[in-house]
């Protein structure tokens, strides 16, 4: 174990800004990518669903 306390862990031996800046931004961007893909999937399904219903109505 490298850390005596939680404070020591977050201080990262004085490199807190650099280390947490790297890990934080990476985590943030990966999360944003996941959210964007999920959102895209949902809008596509909605849009195609609408299209299908519209075409069905036209046929009737």
């Amino acid at each position: 174990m490298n850390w005596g306390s939680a404070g020591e862990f977050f201080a990262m031996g004085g490199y807190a800004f650099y280390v947490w800046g790297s890990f934080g931004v990476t985590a943030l961007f990966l999360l944003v990518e996941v959210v964007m893909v999920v959102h895209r999937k949902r809008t596509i399904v909605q849009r195609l669903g609408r299209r299908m219903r519209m075409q069905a109505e036209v046929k009737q």
Partner: protein
Amino acid sequence: MAVRQINWFKFSSPATFYPLAGKLIPYFAVLAVVLTVIGLYLGFFVAPTDYKQGEGYRIIFIHVPAAWMSMFIYVVMAAYAGMGLVFNTRLSSLMATALAPTGALFTFLALWTGALWGKPMWGAWWVWDARLTSELILLFLYIGFMSLKAAIDDPRRAARASGLLAIIGVINVPIIYKSVEWWNTLHQGATIKSSGTSMETTMLTAMLMMSLAMWMYTIAVVLARVRCEILEAERDTEWVATELSKSP
């Protein structure tokens, strides 16, 4: 032989790949989370402090995997693009398209973490180091691929043109890398060598775990994105209609 061929073509058809990818995504997502937890634990709690760089070196656990991923994804993307061009399989072109944004993201992250690592270690946010410079050029190549794809309206032409571009890019990547390296050694009096020629085994294990985690993450996200691409490309087919009516 014949059986294998049939299987291959079966899974290369979007209609069968779409549900298969949907089933696979959760497994890869779970693997990604588990491996990230293991990797972060090893990286922060098991790997010892570096005697030279202190705690700052821990950026390596995402910087190096992200850089690896950025290069590897480009090669995989070009391979899919090449398959799409040669065999005219729609799915491989869609896979290439789905890989590009994730690859570009990892390239950006490698640059970002590189800058945050460089500032305390080398004293500058940006150094014209051979590896950083090549990474920047790789980002340009990704952006070129995505812009070309986005600029062409006809999906078939878009797939083929960007596929050809990806292949030309992947042939050029080693040439660009070598010339940047040459340029760097000529121009920089004191070359910057990353310390840690003999890495601790725990550090190496943590780095490998993080790389595997990013792999699993990439597979999960790319499968999810390729499902979107498939839906958009095949929206007028029968199977998409039944697929959509199945899941409201």
